[in-house]
Protein backbone atom coordinates (compact mmCIF):
# COMPACT_ATOMS: atom_id res chain seq x y z
CA UNK A 1 0.00 0.00 0.00
CA UNK A 2 1.18 3.45 -0.86
CA UNK A 3 0.03 4.56 2.57
CA UNK A 4 3.04 2.95 4.14
CA UNK A 5 5.43 4.92 2.00
CA UNK A 6 3.68 8.16 2.83
CA UNK A 7 5.37 8.31 6.21
CA UNK A 8 2.15 8.42 8.19
CA UNK A 9 0.41 11.22 6.34
CA UNK A 10 -0.98 13.80 8.69
CA UNK A 11 0.91 12.56 11.71
CA UNK A 12 4.27 13.51 10.38
CA UNK A 13 3.13 15.99 7.81
CA UNK A 14 6.04 18.17 6.97
CA UNK A 15 8.92 15.80 7.11
CA UNK A 16 11.05 14.38 4.40
CA UNK A 17 9.28 15.07 1.10
CA UNK A 18 10.71 18.50 0.48
CA UNK A 19 14.27 17.46 1.16
CA UNK A 20 13.93 15.45 -2.00
CA UNK A 21 15.04 17.48 -4.99
CA UNK A 22 12.14 18.56 -7.11
CA UNK A 23 12.19 16.42 -10.17
CA UNK A 24 13.75 17.97 -13.20
CA UNK A 25 10.69 17.02 -15.17
CA UNK A 26 8.43 18.98 -12.83
CA UNK A 27 10.63 21.98 -13.17
CA UNK A 28 10.47 21.83 -16.92
CA UNK A 29 6.71 21.71 -16.61
CA UNK A 30 6.69 25.03 -14.79
CA UNK A 31 9.29 26.60 -17.00
CA UNK A 32 7.39 25.51 -20.05
CA UNK A 33 4.31 27.34 -18.87
CA UNK A 34 5.92 30.59 -19.91
CA UNK A 35 7.61 29.84 -23.16
CA UNK A 36 9.45 33.13 -23.41
CA UNK A 37 10.98 32.74 -20.00
CA UNK A 38 12.11 29.19 -20.43
CA UNK A 39 15.50 29.90 -21.90
CA UNK A 40 16.20 32.52 -19.29
CA UNK A 41 15.27 30.20 -16.47
CA UNK A 42 17.26 27.33 -17.79
CA UNK A 43 20.34 29.46 -18.19
CA UNK A 44 20.15 30.24 -14.51
CA UNK A 45 19.63 26.66 -13.53
CA UNK A 46 22.75 24.56 -13.50
CA UNK A 47 21.35 21.54 -11.78
CA UNK A 48 18.62 20.30 -9.52
CA UNK A 49 20.52 21.17 -6.39
CA UNK A 50 19.42 24.75 -6.70
CA UNK A 51 15.91 23.64 -5.93
CA UNK A 52 16.75 21.02 -3.38
CA UNK A 53 18.82 23.15 -1.10
CA UNK A 54 18.75 26.83 -2.04
CA UNK A 55 21.13 29.15 -0.31
CA UNK A 56 19.31 31.18 2.33
CA UNK A 57 18.79 34.79 1.27
CA UNK A 58 21.50 37.08 2.56
CA UNK A 59 20.03 39.83 4.73
CA UNK A 60 21.95 42.64 3.11
CA UNK A 61 20.22 46.01 2.83
CA UNK A 62 19.38 46.90 -0.73
CA UNK A 63 18.91 43.32 -1.78
CA UNK A 64 15.64 41.48 -2.17
CA UNK A 65 14.36 38.35 -0.50
CA UNK A 66 13.77 35.57 -3.00
CA UNK A 67 10.97 33.23 -2.03
CA UNK A 68 12.53 30.50 -4.18
CA UNK A 69 10.64 28.23 -6.53
CA UNK A 70 8.40 25.18 -6.59
CA UNK A 71 6.28 24.22 -3.60
CA UNK A 72 8.77 25.75 -1.15
CA UNK A 73 8.59 28.97 -3.12
CA UNK A 74 4.81 29.05 -2.77
CA UNK A 75 5.03 28.29 0.95
CA UNK A 76 7.61 31.05 1.43
CA UNK A 77 5.44 33.42 -0.58
CA UNK A 78 2.48 32.71 1.69
CA UNK A 79 4.73 32.95 4.75
CA UNK A 80 5.94 36.37 3.61
CA UNK A 81 2.40 37.67 3.25
CA UNK A 82 1.36 36.23 6.60
CA UNK A 83 4.39 37.87 8.19
CA UNK A 84 3.23 41.17 6.77
CA UNK A 85 -0.35 40.72 7.98
CA UNK A 86 0.69 39.52 11.43
CA UNK A 87 3.09 42.46 11.83
CA UNK A 88 0.33 44.83 10.81
CA UNK A 89 -2.18 43.54 13.37
CA UNK A 90 0.54 43.45 16.03
CA UNK A 91 1.43 47.09 15.47
CA UNK A 92 -2.24 47.98 15.17
CA UNK A 93 -2.72 47.03 18.81
CA UNK A 94 -0.35 49.80 19.90
CA UNK A 95 -2.22 52.60 18.13
CA UNK A 96 -4.80 54.81 19.79
CA UNK A 97 -7.54 53.72 17.41
CA UNK A 98 -7.36 50.18 18.76
CA UNK A 99 -6.60 51.03 22.38
CA UNK A 100 -9.53 53.45 22.38
CA UNK A 101 -12.03 50.77 21.41
CA UNK A 102 -14.31 49.43 24.10
CA UNK A 103 -13.22 45.89 24.96
CA UNK A 104 -16.73 44.57 24.39
CA UNK A 105 -17.17 46.27 21.03
CA UNK A 106 -17.53 44.20 17.90
CA UNK A 107 -14.70 46.11 16.25
CA UNK A 108 -12.25 45.34 19.04
CA UNK A 109 -13.19 41.67 19.14
CA UNK A 110 -12.95 41.37 15.36
CA UNK A 111 -9.51 42.98 15.32
CA UNK A 112 -8.40 40.72 18.18
CA UNK A 113 -9.49 37.65 16.25
CA UNK A 114 -7.72 38.82 13.11
CA UNK A 115 -4.54 39.38 15.11
CA UNK A 116 -4.76 35.87 16.57
CA UNK A 117 -5.49 34.25 13.22
CA UNK A 118 -2.72 36.00 11.31
CA UNK A 119 -0.08 35.32 13.95
CA UNK A 120 -1.17 31.66 13.95
CA UNK A 121 -0.90 31.60 10.14
CA UNK A 122 2.59 33.08 10.30
CA UNK A 123 3.75 30.63 12.96
CA UNK A 124 2.15 27.75 11.08
CA UNK A 125 4.11 28.51 7.92
CA UNK A 126 7.27 29.04 9.91
CA UNK A 127 6.89 25.60 11.48
CA UNK A 128 5.81 23.98 8.25
CA UNK A 129 8.64 25.31 6.10
CA UNK A 130 11.19 24.74 8.84
CA UNK A 131 10.07 21.13 9.00
CA UNK A 132 9.98 20.61 5.26
CA UNK A 133 12.88 22.66 3.97
CA UNK A 134 14.78 24.29 6.84
CA UNK A 135 17.50 25.73 4.66
CA UNK A 136 15.06 27.32 2.24
CA UNK A 137 12.89 29.33 4.63
CA UNK A 138 12.99 33.08 4.15
CA UNK A 139 14.13 35.32 6.97
CA UNK A 140 11.96 37.36 9.30
CA UNK A 141 10.88 40.33 7.23
CA UNK A 142 11.00 43.91 8.45
CA UNK A 143 7.81 45.79 7.64
CA UNK A 144 7.50 49.47 6.90
CA UNK A 145 4.08 50.74 7.89
CA UNK A 146 5.01 54.42 7.83
CA UNK A 147 2.17 55.07 5.39
CA UNK A 148 -0.41 53.88 7.93
CA UNK A 149 -1.70 56.07 10.74
CA UNK A 150 -2.39 53.62 13.53
CA UNK A 151 -4.30 56.26 15.47
CA UNK A 152 -6.87 56.70 12.74
CA UNK A 153 -9.77 54.33 12.10
CA UNK A 154 -10.04 54.96 8.37
CA UNK A 155 -6.31 54.54 7.86
CA UNK A 156 -6.13 51.34 9.90
CA UNK A 157 -9.22 49.69 8.42
CA UNK A 158 -8.29 50.85 4.95
CA UNK A 159 -4.92 49.14 5.31
CA UNK A 160 -6.55 46.04 6.80
CA UNK A 161 -8.89 45.87 3.83
CA UNK A 162 -5.97 46.21 1.44
CA UNK A 163 -4.00 43.45 3.19
CA UNK A 164 -6.91 41.03 3.43
CA UNK A 165 -8.06 41.52 -0.16
CA UNK A 166 -4.45 41.23 -1.32
CA UNK A 167 -4.00 38.04 0.67
CA UNK A 168 -7.05 36.41 -0.89
CA UNK A 169 -6.08 37.36 -4.43
CA UNK A 170 -2.53 36.19 -3.76
CA UNK A 171 -3.49 32.74 -2.46
CA UNK A 172 -5.96 32.30 -5.30
CA UNK A 173 -3.33 33.27 -7.84
CA UNK A 174 -0.65 31.03 -6.35
CA UNK A 175 -2.64 27.79 -6.28
CA UNK A 176 -1.54 27.02 -9.82
CA UNK A 177 2.14 26.96 -8.82
CA UNK A 178 1.70 24.10 -6.36
CA UNK A 179 2.75 20.69 -7.63
CA UNK A 180 0.28 17.87 -8.16
CA UNK A 181 2.50 15.14 -6.77
CA UNK A 182 3.87 14.22 -3.36
CA UNK A 183 2.76 16.71 -0.74
CA UNK A 184 1.47 19.12 -3.41
CA UNK A 185 -2.20 18.22 -2.86
CA UNK A 186 -1.70 18.73 0.89
CA UNK A 187 -0.14 22.15 0.37
CA UNK A 188 -2.98 23.14 -1.94
CA UNK A 189 -5.50 22.04 0.68
CA UNK A 190 -3.67 23.87 3.47
CA UNK A 191 -3.56 27.04 1.40
CA UNK A 192 -7.26 26.57 0.74
CA UNK A 193 -7.94 26.23 4.47
CA UNK A 194 -6.33 29.60 5.04
CA UNK A 195 -7.57 31.57 2.06
CA UNK A 196 -11.23 31.22 2.96
CA UNK A 197 -10.48 32.54 6.43
CA UNK A 198 -8.70 35.49 4.81
CA UNK A 199 -11.79 36.01 2.65
CA UNK A 200 -13.98 36.00 5.75
CA UNK A 201 -11.65 38.60 7.27
CA UNK A 202 -11.78 40.71 4.14
CA UNK A 203 -15.57 40.58 4.14
CA UNK A 204 -16.01 41.80 7.72
CA UNK A 205 -13.34 44.49 7.43
CA UNK A 206 -15.04 45.78 4.30
CA UNK A 207 -18.37 45.70 6.14
CA UNK A 208 -16.84 47.72 8.99
CA UNK A 209 -15.79 50.36 6.48
CA UNK A 210 -18.98 50.26 4.43
CA UNK A 211 -21.83 48.05 5.54
CA UNK A 212 -22.70 45.50 2.85
CA UNK A 213 -19.51 45.95 0.81
CA UNK A 214 -18.24 42.44 1.73
CA UNK A 215 -17.82 41.46 -1.91
CA UNK A 216 -17.51 44.73 -3.76
CA UNK A 217 -17.19 45.03 -7.51
CA UNK A 218 -13.52 45.93 -7.04
CA UNK A 219 -12.73 42.35 -5.98
CA UNK A 220 -15.02 40.25 -8.18
CA UNK A 221 -15.70 40.16 -11.89
CA UNK A 222 -19.04 40.03 -13.67
CA UNK A 223 -19.12 36.22 -13.39
CA UNK A 224 -18.99 36.43 -9.61
CA UNK A 225 -15.40 35.20 -9.47
CA UNK A 226 -12.81 36.83 -7.22
CA UNK A 227 -10.09 38.59 -9.20
CA UNK A 228 -6.85 36.79 -8.39
CA UNK A 229 -3.41 38.30 -8.74
CA UNK A 230 -0.10 36.94 -9.93
CA UNK A 231 2.83 36.86 -7.50
CA UNK A 232 4.42 39.72 -9.45
CA UNK A 233 1.30 41.87 -9.03
CA UNK A 234 1.04 40.99 -5.36
CA UNK A 235 4.62 41.81 -4.41
CA UNK A 236 4.41 45.13 -6.23
CA UNK A 237 1.80 46.04 -3.61
CA UNK A 238 3.31 44.16 -0.69
CA UNK A 239 6.78 45.62 -1.21
CA UNK A 240 5.48 49.10 -0.48
CA UNK A 241 4.97 47.89 3.09
CA UNK A 242 8.36 46.21 3.43
CA UNK A 243 11.64 47.84 4.47
CA UNK A 244 14.74 47.90 2.29
CA UNK A 245 16.40 44.51 2.48
CA UNK A 246 13.05 42.83 3.09
CA UNK A 247 11.43 43.47 -0.25
CA UNK A 248 10.29 40.32 -1.97
CA UNK A 249 11.45 38.75 -5.19
CA UNK A 250 9.06 36.21 -6.68
CA UNK A 251 10.82 35.61 -9.99
CA UNK A 252 11.08 31.94 -9.06
CA UNK A 253 7.30 31.59 -9.26
CA UNK A 254 6.29 31.49 -12.89
Amino acid at each position, binding site marked *: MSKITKAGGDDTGFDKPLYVPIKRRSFFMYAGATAGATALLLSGCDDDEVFADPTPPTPTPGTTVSVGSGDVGVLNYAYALEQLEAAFYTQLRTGSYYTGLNATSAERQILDDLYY*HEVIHREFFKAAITGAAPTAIIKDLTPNFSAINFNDRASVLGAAKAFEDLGVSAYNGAGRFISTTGNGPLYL*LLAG*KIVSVEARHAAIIRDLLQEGNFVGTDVINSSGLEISKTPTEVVAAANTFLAEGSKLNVSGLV
Partner: protein
Amino acid sequence: MNIFQIISEIEKVDPEVYDRLDSRRSIFKHMSGMGKTLAAAAVPMAFGAVLNKAYAQTSMAPGVNDVLNFALKLEYLEAAFYNQGLGAANGTATAVQTALRAGFSATNLAALDKIRNDETAHVAFLRTALGTNAIDAPAANTFDFTGGKGGTPGPFATVFTAPATFLAVAQALEDTGVRAYKGGAPYLASNKDVLTAALNIHSVEARHASRIRTMRRAGAMNNAASQTAAGTDRSASPKSWVSGNDGGGPAPAQTAAVYGMGAAPAYTPAVITFPGEENVTQGGVNLQTALSSLNFPAAAFSEAFDEALPVPVVSDIARTFVITGSTFI
Protein backbone atom coordinates in the same frame (compact mmCIF):
# COMPACT_ATOMS: atom_id res chain seq x y z
CA MET B 1 -33.90 -12.43 -13.34
CA ASN B 2 -33.98 -10.08 -16.27
CA ILE B 3 -30.58 -8.48 -16.45
CA PHE B 4 -31.57 -5.97 -19.07
CA GLN B 5 -34.57 -4.83 -17.07
CA ILE B 6 -32.31 -4.31 -14.10
CA ILE B 7 -29.87 -2.33 -16.19
CA SER B 8 -32.77 -0.29 -17.48
CA GLU B 9 -33.80 0.47 -13.91
CA ILE B 10 -30.26 1.41 -13.04
CA GLU B 11 -30.17 3.69 -16.03
CA LYS B 12 -32.92 5.77 -14.47
CA VAL B 13 -30.68 6.69 -11.59
CA ASP B 14 -27.37 6.45 -13.40
CA PRO B 15 -27.59 7.51 -17.04
CA GLU B 16 -23.97 6.51 -17.52
CA VAL B 17 -24.51 2.86 -16.62
CA TYR B 18 -23.96 1.67 -20.19
CA ASP B 19 -20.67 3.52 -20.34
CA ARG B 20 -19.63 1.90 -17.13
CA LEU B 21 -20.57 -1.57 -18.34
CA ASP B 22 -19.11 -0.98 -21.76
CA SER B 23 -15.78 0.02 -20.32
CA ARG B 24 -15.71 -3.41 -18.71
CA ARG B 25 -16.59 -5.20 -21.91
CA SER B 26 -14.02 -7.90 -21.32
CA ILE B 27 -15.81 -8.89 -18.16
CA PHE B 28 -19.05 -9.11 -20.08
CA LYS B 29 -17.38 -11.47 -22.50
CA HIS B 30 -16.05 -13.49 -19.66
CA MET B 31 -19.50 -13.67 -18.14
CA SER B 32 -21.18 -14.90 -21.30
CA GLY B 33 -18.66 -17.70 -21.38
CA MET B 34 -19.50 -18.57 -17.82
CA GLY B 35 -23.17 -18.76 -18.62
CA LYS B 36 -22.60 -21.89 -20.62
CA THR B 37 -20.90 -23.79 -17.88
CA LEU B 38 -22.37 -22.38 -14.69
CA ALA B 39 -25.70 -23.27 -13.21
CA ALA B 40 -28.37 -20.61 -13.60
CA ALA B 41 -28.30 -20.02 -9.86
CA ALA B 42 -24.75 -18.72 -10.11
CA VAL B 43 -25.61 -16.07 -12.68
CA PRO B 44 -26.96 -13.51 -10.22
CA MET B 45 -23.69 -13.67 -8.34
CA ALA B 46 -21.71 -13.23 -11.51
CA PHE B 47 -23.90 -10.32 -12.50
CA GLY B 48 -23.33 -8.76 -9.09
CA ALA B 49 -19.63 -9.05 -9.73
CA VAL B 50 -20.02 -7.21 -13.01
CA LEU B 51 -21.90 -4.39 -11.33
CA ASN B 52 -19.31 -4.21 -8.59
CA LYS B 53 -16.63 -3.92 -11.20
CA ALA B 54 -18.61 -1.29 -13.08
CA TYR B 55 -19.19 0.81 -10.01
CA ALA B 56 -15.72 0.30 -8.66
CA GLN B 57 -14.98 3.28 -10.87
CA THR B 58 -16.50 5.50 -8.22
CA SER B 59 -13.43 4.75 -6.15
CA MET B 60 -11.38 6.61 -8.72
CA ALA B 61 -10.62 10.27 -8.21
CA PRO B 62 -13.22 12.45 -9.92
CA GLY B 63 -12.20 14.10 -13.15
CA VAL B 64 -12.25 17.82 -13.80
CA ASN B 65 -15.73 17.69 -15.34
CA ASP B 66 -17.05 15.62 -12.44
CA VAL B 67 -15.83 18.19 -9.94
CA LEU B 68 -17.17 21.09 -11.97
CA ASN B 69 -20.55 19.44 -12.37
CA PHE B 70 -20.69 18.77 -8.66
CA ALA B 71 -19.90 22.43 -8.05
CA LEU B 72 -22.61 23.33 -10.56
CA LYS B 73 -25.14 21.24 -8.63
CA LEU B 74 -24.30 23.12 -5.45
CA GLU B 75 -24.58 26.44 -7.26
CA TYR B 76 -27.97 25.38 -8.67
CA LEU B 77 -28.99 24.59 -5.11
CA GLU B 78 -27.79 27.92 -3.75
CA ALA B 79 -29.19 29.97 -6.62
CA ALA B 80 -32.56 28.23 -6.29
CA PHE B 81 -32.58 28.99 -2.57
CA TYR B 82 -32.05 32.73 -2.99
CA ASN B 83 -34.27 32.99 -6.05
CA GLN B 84 -37.14 31.14 -4.40
CA GLY B 85 -36.83 33.15 -1.22
CA LEU B 86 -36.11 36.61 -2.54
CA GLY B 87 -37.32 36.48 -6.13
CA ALA B 88 -35.09 36.50 -9.18
CA ALA B 89 -33.20 39.61 -10.20
CA ASN B 90 -35.41 41.93 -12.29
CA GLY B 91 -38.33 39.57 -11.70
CA THR B 92 -41.64 40.35 -10.05
CA ALA B 93 -41.64 39.25 -6.45
CA THR B 94 -44.56 37.18 -5.20
CA ALA B 95 -46.47 38.23 -2.12
CA VAL B 96 -44.52 35.75 0.00
CA GLN B 97 -41.21 36.97 -1.39
CA THR B 98 -42.21 40.59 -0.82
CA ALA B 99 -43.11 39.79 2.76
CA LEU B 100 -39.79 38.04 3.36
CA ARG B 101 -37.85 40.90 1.81
CA ALA B 102 -39.62 43.31 4.16
CA GLY B 103 -38.16 41.34 7.06
CA PHE B 104 -34.62 42.47 6.29
CA SER B 105 -32.98 45.85 6.84
CA ALA B 106 -32.02 47.78 3.73
CA THR B 107 -28.31 46.88 3.96
CA ASN B 108 -29.09 43.24 4.68
CA LEU B 109 -31.52 42.98 1.79
CA ALA B 110 -28.99 44.57 -0.55
CA ALA B 111 -26.38 42.09 0.68
CA LEU B 112 -28.70 39.14 0.06
CA ASP B 113 -29.56 40.36 -3.41
CA LYS B 114 -25.85 40.67 -4.12
CA ILE B 115 -25.27 37.12 -2.94
CA ARG B 116 -28.18 35.88 -5.05
CA ASN B 117 -26.73 37.57 -8.11
CA ASP B 118 -23.31 36.03 -7.45
CA GLU B 119 -24.75 32.53 -7.14
CA THR B 120 -26.73 32.97 -10.34
CA ALA B 121 -23.55 34.20 -12.03
CA HIS B 122 -21.66 31.15 -10.71
CA VAL B 123 -24.24 28.88 -12.33
CA ALA B 124 -23.84 30.69 -15.65
CA PHE B 125 -20.05 30.59 -15.42
CA LEU B 126 -19.86 26.89 -14.64
CA ARG B 127 -22.36 26.06 -17.38
CA THR B 128 -20.22 27.96 -19.85
CA ALA B 129 -17.04 26.31 -18.59
CA LEU B 130 -18.57 22.84 -18.91
CA GLY B 131 -20.22 23.49 -22.26
CA THR B 132 -22.14 20.46 -23.45
CA ASN B 133 -20.93 18.50 -20.42
CA ALA B 134 -22.95 20.69 -18.06
CA ILE B 135 -25.78 18.95 -16.27
CA ASP B 136 -29.19 20.47 -16.86
CA ALA B 137 -30.80 22.87 -14.44
CA PRO B 138 -33.11 20.94 -12.11
CA ALA B 139 -36.82 21.69 -11.95
CA ALA B 140 -37.80 24.09 -9.18
CA ASN B 141 -39.72 21.35 -7.40
CA THR B 142 -36.51 19.33 -7.05
CA PHE B 143 -35.79 21.32 -3.92
CA ASP B 144 -37.45 21.53 -0.54
CA PHE B 145 -35.68 24.12 1.54
CA THR B 146 -37.82 23.33 4.58
CA GLY B 147 -35.71 20.21 4.96
CA GLY B 148 -38.83 18.06 4.69
CA LYS B 149 -37.53 16.38 1.53
CA GLY B 150 -40.84 16.86 -0.26
CA GLY B 151 -43.06 15.49 2.50
CA THR B 152 -44.32 17.35 5.55
CA PRO B 153 -42.53 20.69 5.89
CA GLY B 154 -39.29 19.99 7.69
CA PRO B 155 -37.34 21.67 10.47
CA PHE B 156 -36.97 24.84 8.39
CA ALA B 157 -40.72 25.14 7.70
CA THR B 158 -40.49 28.92 7.97
CA VAL B 159 -37.48 29.23 5.67
CA PHE B 160 -39.23 31.58 3.25
CA THR B 161 -41.40 33.39 5.77
CA ALA B 162 -39.12 33.99 8.77
CA PRO B 163 -35.96 35.99 8.01
CA ALA B 164 -34.03 34.33 10.85
CA THR B 165 -34.74 30.87 9.44
CA PHE B 166 -33.78 32.04 5.98
CA LEU B 167 -30.42 33.27 7.27
CA ALA B 168 -29.89 30.05 9.21
CA VAL B 169 -30.34 27.94 6.08
CA ALA B 170 -28.21 30.40 4.09
CA GLN B 171 -25.37 29.99 6.59
CA ALA B 172 -25.53 26.21 6.30
CA LEU B 173 -25.49 26.41 2.49
CA GLU B 174 -22.66 28.95 2.26
CA ASP B 175 -20.45 27.21 4.79
CA THR B 176 -21.06 23.94 2.97
CA GLY B 177 -20.11 25.61 -0.30
CA VAL B 178 -16.82 26.81 1.15
CA ARG B 179 -15.97 23.34 2.44
CA ALA B 180 -17.03 21.67 -0.81
CA TYR B 181 -14.87 23.82 -3.10
CA LYS B 182 -11.95 23.31 -0.74
CA GLY B 183 -12.42 19.55 -0.92
CA GLY B 184 -12.67 19.59 -4.70
CA ALA B 185 -9.64 21.75 -5.42
CA PRO B 186 -7.00 19.00 -5.29
CA TYR B 187 -8.79 17.13 -8.11
CA LEU B 188 -8.69 20.18 -10.35
CA ALA B 189 -4.95 20.75 -10.00
CA SER B 190 -4.21 19.09 -13.33
CA ASN B 191 -5.90 22.00 -15.10
CA LYS B 192 -4.38 25.20 -13.74
CA ASP B 193 -6.92 27.57 -15.26
CA VAL B 194 -9.88 25.57 -13.98
CA LEU B 195 -8.24 25.32 -10.57
CA THR B 196 -7.78 29.08 -10.43
CA ALA B 197 -11.39 29.67 -11.46
CA ALA B 198 -12.60 27.32 -8.73
CA LEU B 199 -10.41 29.06 -6.16
CA ASN B 200 -11.83 32.37 -7.32
CA ILE B 201 -15.36 31.09 -6.65
CA HIS B 202 -14.31 29.49 -3.36
CA SER B 203 -13.22 32.76 -1.78
CA VAL B 204 -16.42 34.49 -2.89
CA GLU B 205 -18.43 31.78 -1.13
CA ALA B 206 -16.35 32.50 1.98
CA ARG B 207 -17.14 36.20 1.73
CA HIS B 208 -20.83 35.31 1.45
CA ALA B 209 -20.58 33.00 4.45
CA SER B 210 -18.92 35.75 6.43
CA ARG B 211 -21.66 38.26 5.64
CA ILE B 212 -24.51 35.82 6.33
CA ARG B 213 -22.94 35.05 9.71
CA THR B 214 -22.54 38.75 10.45
CA MET B 215 -26.22 39.31 9.66
CA ARG B 216 -27.32 36.35 11.76
CA ARG B 217 -25.64 37.55 14.92
CA ALA B 218 -27.02 41.08 14.53
CA GLY B 219 -30.53 40.07 13.50
CA ALA B 220 -32.17 40.45 10.12
CA MET B 221 -33.47 44.00 10.69
CA ASN B 222 -30.14 45.46 11.81
CA ASN B 223 -28.71 48.04 9.42
CA ALA B 224 -25.21 47.99 10.92
CA ALA B 225 -24.69 44.27 11.35
CA SER B 226 -20.89 44.47 11.50
CA GLN B 227 -21.11 46.44 14.74
CA THR B 228 -22.60 43.53 16.69
CA ALA B 229 -20.20 41.27 18.57
CA ALA B 230 -20.66 37.52 18.61
CA GLY B 231 -22.36 35.96 21.62
CA THR B 232 -21.22 32.93 23.54
CA ASP B 233 -23.65 30.59 21.78
CA ARG B 234 -22.02 30.26 18.38
CA SER B 235 -24.91 28.32 16.88
CA ALA B 236 -27.22 31.25 17.56
CA SER B 237 -24.78 34.17 17.37
CA PRO B 238 -21.87 33.14 15.18
CA LYS B 239 -18.63 34.93 14.47
CA SER B 240 -17.98 35.77 10.82
CA TRP B 241 -15.63 32.76 10.78
CA VAL B 242 -16.23 29.24 12.05
CA SER B 243 -15.33 28.98 15.73
CA GLY B 244 -14.86 25.41 16.87
CA ASN B 245 -17.78 23.49 15.40
CA ASP B 246 -20.14 26.39 16.11
CA GLY B 247 -22.27 24.25 18.39
CA GLY B 248 -23.40 22.25 15.38
CA GLY B 249 -24.46 25.30 13.40
CA PRO B 250 -27.77 27.15 13.20
CA ALA B 251 -29.91 24.03 13.74
CA PRO B 252 -27.61 21.41 15.29
CA ALA B 253 -29.96 18.47 14.66
CA GLN B 254 -29.80 19.20 10.93
CA THR B 255 -26.62 21.19 10.43
CA ALA B 256 -24.05 19.49 12.65
CA ALA B 257 -22.74 17.65 9.60
CA VAL B 258 -21.86 21.00 8.01
CA TYR B 259 -19.27 21.50 10.75
CA GLY B 260 -18.35 17.89 11.43
CA MET B 261 -15.68 15.71 9.95
CA GLY B 262 -15.91 13.93 6.64
CA ALA B 263 -14.92 10.38 5.75
CA ALA B 264 -12.31 10.48 3.01
CA PRO B 265 -13.30 8.38 -0.03
CA ALA B 266 -10.88 5.75 -1.24
CA TYR B 267 -9.61 7.95 -4.04
CA THR B 268 -8.39 10.67 -1.66
CA PRO B 269 -4.61 11.18 -1.65
CA ALA B 270 -3.12 9.79 1.55
CA VAL B 271 -1.89 13.21 2.62
CA ILE B 272 -5.40 14.66 2.76
CA THR B 273 -7.78 14.27 5.69
CA PHE B 274 -11.17 15.79 6.46
CA PRO B 275 -11.34 16.73 10.14
CA GLY B 276 -14.22 18.71 11.64
CA GLU B 277 -14.11 22.49 11.88
CA GLU B 278 -12.93 22.32 15.48
CA ASN B 279 -9.64 20.84 14.25
CA VAL B 280 -6.45 22.48 15.58
CA THR B 281 -3.90 20.17 13.92
CA GLN B 282 -2.58 21.38 10.57
CA GLY B 283 0.10 19.64 8.54
CA GLY B 284 0.66 17.24 11.39
CA VAL B 285 1.30 19.98 13.95
CA ASN B 286 -1.10 20.55 16.84
CA LEU B 287 -0.98 24.32 16.73
CA GLN B 288 -2.77 24.84 20.02
CA THR B 289 -0.04 22.84 21.74
CA ALA B 290 2.89 24.02 19.66
CA LEU B 291 1.91 27.67 20.01
CA SER B 292 0.69 27.55 23.61
CA SER B 293 3.26 30.18 24.57
CA LEU B 294 1.23 32.74 22.62
CA ASN B 295 -1.53 32.47 25.23
CA PHE B 296 -4.19 32.94 22.56
CA PRO B 297 -7.80 31.88 23.19
CA ALA B 298 -8.22 28.19 22.41
CA ALA B 299 -10.90 28.94 19.80
CA ALA B 300 -8.47 30.99 17.70
CA PHE B 301 -6.56 27.89 16.63
CA SER B 302 -9.60 26.34 14.99
CA GLU B 303 -10.89 29.66 13.65
CA ALA B 304 -7.66 30.34 11.75
CA PHE B 305 -8.34 27.45 9.38
CA ASP B 306 -11.45 26.35 7.51
CA GLU B 307 -11.70 22.63 6.85
CA ALA B 308 -12.57 20.79 3.66
CA LEU B 309 -15.34 18.25 3.11
CA PRO B 310 -15.34 15.34 0.65
CA VAL B 311 -18.00 14.97 -2.03
CA PRO B 312 -20.07 12.19 -0.38
CA VAL B 313 -20.55 14.20 2.82
CA VAL B 314 -21.42 17.36 0.91
CA SER B 315 -23.99 15.34 -1.01
CA ASP B 316 -25.51 14.08 2.22
CA ILE B 317 -25.82 17.62 3.52
CA ALA B 318 -27.24 18.92 0.25
CA ARG B 319 -29.83 16.13 0.18
CA THR B 320 -31.40 17.74 3.23
CA PHE B 321 -32.82 20.26 0.76
CA VAL B 322 -33.74 17.92 -2.08
CA ILE B 323 -36.98 15.96 -2.40
CA THR B 324 -36.84 12.24 -1.74
CA GLY B 325 -36.36 10.24 -4.89
CA SER B 326 -34.58 12.99 -6.76
CA THR B 327 -31.21 11.92 -8.05
CA PHE B 328 -30.07 15.49 -8.42
CA ILE B 329 -27.48 15.58 -5.63
